[in-house]
């Protein structure tokens, strides 16, 4: 697949397959196209697929808009989501969990999940992302995904700006979202995770890692080996080892 953003080719030749129940990690230097790949899979209008297609559960979704893709089961947790004045986190959670917007209260299940994410009722009443701390943003994003229950989830830096004790809390819920509590053969949900060699991988097991360089997947393989390589040799060195470049 190739992708253009405002006339500029950002992704040149991407070939990526994530099987049912698998979690992949996307690594790569800044500006390599990691976020572009996310936005393209989400179907944001600025991201034009000029070649190739996106298949989801065997279906070509390249021409569907974001809403339609999300309704089919695509989910995302953003790194820096925008604040929306006057729209309370609770209002969003109602829509996401399929409650009626004019329901007075959140369902008991949602409230329980919120407490698990250490987000109390006062917090749910706040305008979404407005004045949230780094950690609160991430917990709110994961809580919204728990409400949505997507089949395929992209996580953009889910642990950046989060203190260590809360990384474990987030990881626990990410593992639930990705069916990690089930045996590998029984897992249905899949994920793609962007991280800067994050601490999160100590708690979330990934099946495969990919290194994105200059709009191409330059290297794929065992996550811990690749990460080890990048730590030692940097992105360039790692990619050379892979020998695909």
């Amino acid at each position, binding site marked *: 697949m190739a992708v253009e953003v405002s006339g500029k080719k950002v992704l040149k030749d991407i070939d990526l397959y994530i099987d049912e129940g698998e979690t992949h990690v996307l690594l790569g230097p800044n500006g390599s196209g990691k976020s572009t790949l996310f936005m393209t899979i989400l179907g944001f209008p600025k991201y034009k697929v000029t070649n190739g297609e996106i298949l989801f559960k065997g279906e070509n979704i390249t021409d569907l808009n974001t*809403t339609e893709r999300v309704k089919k089961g695509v989910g995302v947790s953003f790194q820096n989501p925008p604040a*929306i004045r*006057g*729209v309370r986190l609770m209002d969003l959670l109602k829509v996401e969990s399929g409650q009626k917007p004019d329901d007075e209260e959140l369902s008991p299940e949602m409230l329980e999940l919120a407490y698990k994410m250490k987000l109390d009722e006062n917090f749910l009443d706040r305008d979404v992302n407005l004045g949230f701390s780094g950690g609160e943003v991430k917990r709110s994003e994961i809580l919204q995904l728990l409400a949505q229950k997507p089949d395929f989830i992209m996580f953009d830096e889910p642990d950046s700006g989060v203190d260590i004790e809360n990384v474990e809390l987030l990881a626990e819920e990410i593992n639930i979202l990705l069916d990690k509590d089930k045996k590998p053969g029984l897992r249905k949900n899949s994920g793609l995770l962007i991280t800067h060699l994050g601490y999160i991988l100590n708690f979330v097991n990934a099946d495969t890692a990919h290194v994105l360089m200059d709009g191409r997947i330059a290297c794929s393989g065992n996550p811990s080996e690749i990460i080890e390589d990048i730590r030692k040799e940097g992105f360039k060195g790692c990619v050379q080892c892979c020998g695909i470049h």
Partner: protein
Amino acid sequence: MLRDTLGKAEKAKEKKALYGEDIDLEKFIKEEAGEHEQVTKANEVPKKVQDTLLKVGVDPNESERSGTFIQVDQTGVCSTCGSESVEIMGMNVALEKYNWLKDYMWKSVAPDTDKYTAQTALREANEGPSGYFIRSLPGSKEVFPLQACMFIGDEKVMQTAHNVIIAEENSELHIITGCATGEDVSSALHVGVSEFYLKKGAKITFTMVHNWAEQVDVRPRTGIMVGDDSTYISNYILTSPVRSIQSYPTAYCTGTNSKVLFQSILGGQKDSVLDMGSRVLLEGEGSKAEMISRAVSKDQSQIYSRGHLAGRTQNVKGHLECHGLVLSDDSMIYAVPELEGSSTELEMSHEAAVGKIAEEEVLYLTSRGLTEEEAASMIVRGFLSMDITGLPPELASETKRMLDASLQGM
């Protein structure tokens, strides 16, 4: 009525207003408004009036209300009061009861302000008073609000009302007013003159919801005299179509440490022209004012959002804030914030921003499964649903409900 008032009104009969389209009064004056039957309880007014009342926050069953006044066209059809702390009645009744009331008339709004005030004064003299009188007794604190409604039921009517609201020393008064038109009225004019007097240490909250018809012109004229240590809070909500409305209430903060807060929520739809302002003259030492407005323009609507803050003595403080969202290329928002400082030691600021819906916010919501339309509507409703402050808890939740109901149609 004082000869002086009449003389001024007579001279100003043709005087155009400073803002807003000039309305040809001849079109409306000729039409004689029908008389309407008096009732003893708000839920005895005709069913079609009751349904409309609910939309503007006036509860015909008067639950959690301390009293009600309803005027249909020119007739005060209902006034009830269930509290000993407050009074609410038609001006005709009040003028007979209180000899001193005339001293409050035309003192905060001049009869010769423009042709609309002039007509109201002349009509008052020739045909008798209309409108309501509200008063809270000294030291009283009634938590349940009074409710008042101006309803236009007849075609081509010019409805005039002259209201006087007095909060006596150290009293607290909460008022909900709703103005609306019957469904079968296509063209009408409403002129409401309202004069507020806050004595030392008094507080008034005045929450108003307008729900006029598409061919109705509205010209309210409001003056507020704010005494020592007193607080006036106005909340105004208009989200339904109207032909035109032009209003520029003025608060005179002459009392030391007096406070004023104007909050308005304006939704322009269809061909509506909304010209809404608020003005505060800070003339009392230590007086403070804040004016906040949120405006959203749709379709072909035009919204003028004006604000004038004048600091005329020392140690006064004021802030003016106007945010607008333009939703269609054929609509317009014109923000006119004005600051005037004529003393040292004052602090005044303004903040105005007019723009479109942030695309980033729409994308965020679509990535959570909302359609673009649902996302835009959620953002607009969020933008308009500012926190209305200064109300007692009972009234705050009620106002939130009224606001939510008004925003349904946006």
